[in-house]
């Protein structure tokens, strides 16, 4: 019993297949097998949100999911958002508005904020705070994170309007 199983994941548009014990946590598979170390391990108890990724269109905490549960899923991690030379609008906004200090929580913040803005493209500050409640930051006091997300929202909305 308790052998390995074949796991298939599509991460940032790329197909991966590997053999793993079902009990392996998704965040460890992403970091250690696929070398996608942007998703961090923080509290490991589902509270802090630094391991947040998008799985089949939902923001989830990858420390509270077994890799077996994710078998067959499509994921986006922070590596799928932008690159150092070509930052995502949210990443650029966090840089511009000092939405980070130590940066440990930032990948989770970016991933959750991206999903939030997909669901509510024009949020109020209150909606941002409520929608980001599953992500903890011990540096910024949140003010600049909220400011960054509001700025990214208006940037994305004006880009959309310009395109129409």
């Amino acid at each position, binding site marked *: 019993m308790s052998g390995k199983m074949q796991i298939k994941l599509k991460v940032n548009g790329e197909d991966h297949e590997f053999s793993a014990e079902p009990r392996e946590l998704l965040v460890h598979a992403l970091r250690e097998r696929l070398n996608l170390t942007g998703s961090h391990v923080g509290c490991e108890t589902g509270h802090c949100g630094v391991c947040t990724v998008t799985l089949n269109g939902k923001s989830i*905490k990858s420390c509270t999911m077994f890799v077996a*549960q994710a078998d067959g899923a499509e994921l986006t991690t922070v590596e799928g958002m932008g690159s150092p030379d070509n930052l995502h609008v949210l990443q650029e906004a966090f840089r511009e508005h000092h939405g980070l200090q130590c940066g440990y929580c930032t990948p989770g913040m970016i991933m959750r904020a991206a999903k939030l803005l997909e669901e509510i493209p024009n949020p109020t500050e209150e909606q941002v705070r409520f929608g980001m*409640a599953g992500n903890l930051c011990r540096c910024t006091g949140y003010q600049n994170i909220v400011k960054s997300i509001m700025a990214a929202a208006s940037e994305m909305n004006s880009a959309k309007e310009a395109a129409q």
Partner: protein
Amino acid sequence: MIPAAFDYYRPNDLDGVISLLQEHGDDARVIAGGHSLIPLMKLRMAEVPHLIDLQSIEELTGIENGARIRIGAMTTQADIIDNASLASSAPILKEASLQIADPQVRYMGTVGGNVANGDPGNDMPGLMQCLDATFILRGPNGGREVKARDFYHAAYMTEREDDEVMVAVTFDAPKGGYAYEKQKRKIGDYATAAAAVIISKDGSKCKEASIAMTNLSDTPVFCGAASDCLIGTSVSAEDIKNAVNSMIDAIDPAEDNRGPVEFKKHAAAVVLSRAIERAWQRA
């Protein structure tokens, strides 16, 4: 934190789940959203040699709206929040769901897991008792129905047998005003105290009332006597006080890191007063 090893199964139908449960007995558990079970497994407070994932079972999904509402066990809190027709026919579900955990957890956390787990800290059990909901279970001998008010025996001890699966919850669309009021230390915490209240009006008097409390005993507490204190009254400050006093007699909180017993009784009184006031305003 890595749990003990287990075998993983993802059956496509309920018969497959039930036969695995029969084969492995106590060594098997079903997993829905996993946000109660996975932390316990990681801490090795739960050992599950055979883990049966319910994510591919169509029969456990879906929300049927109408005079009688049916919510499949695998419906997530996020599904409830996003369902506009449910938000209009039974708005107390959305109000309560928005107070559970945080956005990421609400994408995963299910109604079935929340009611079946038997954790006194879960919010849905008290809410289901307030709604006088019925739980639909399926086992080797077919389906059966159990009233939410009869389901909970003690912490993690419920009417569900080891080889039964929670399939759905059903309840009549509630009438009148509603409120789910929850006091918690921080986002993501369980309630220090929470109250579910539904009140209907006849003219200026209360016609029907239903009150249930969360995390104030080792089971949810349906407060029939407290509900009766409101019926036929104009829900004055005095009537609310009577209902609150009756509720205090029905709960049995234990001291823990959320506070001593007296504080919990105080918090229970505050959340219930607020919930009754809000429900009455909406009635």
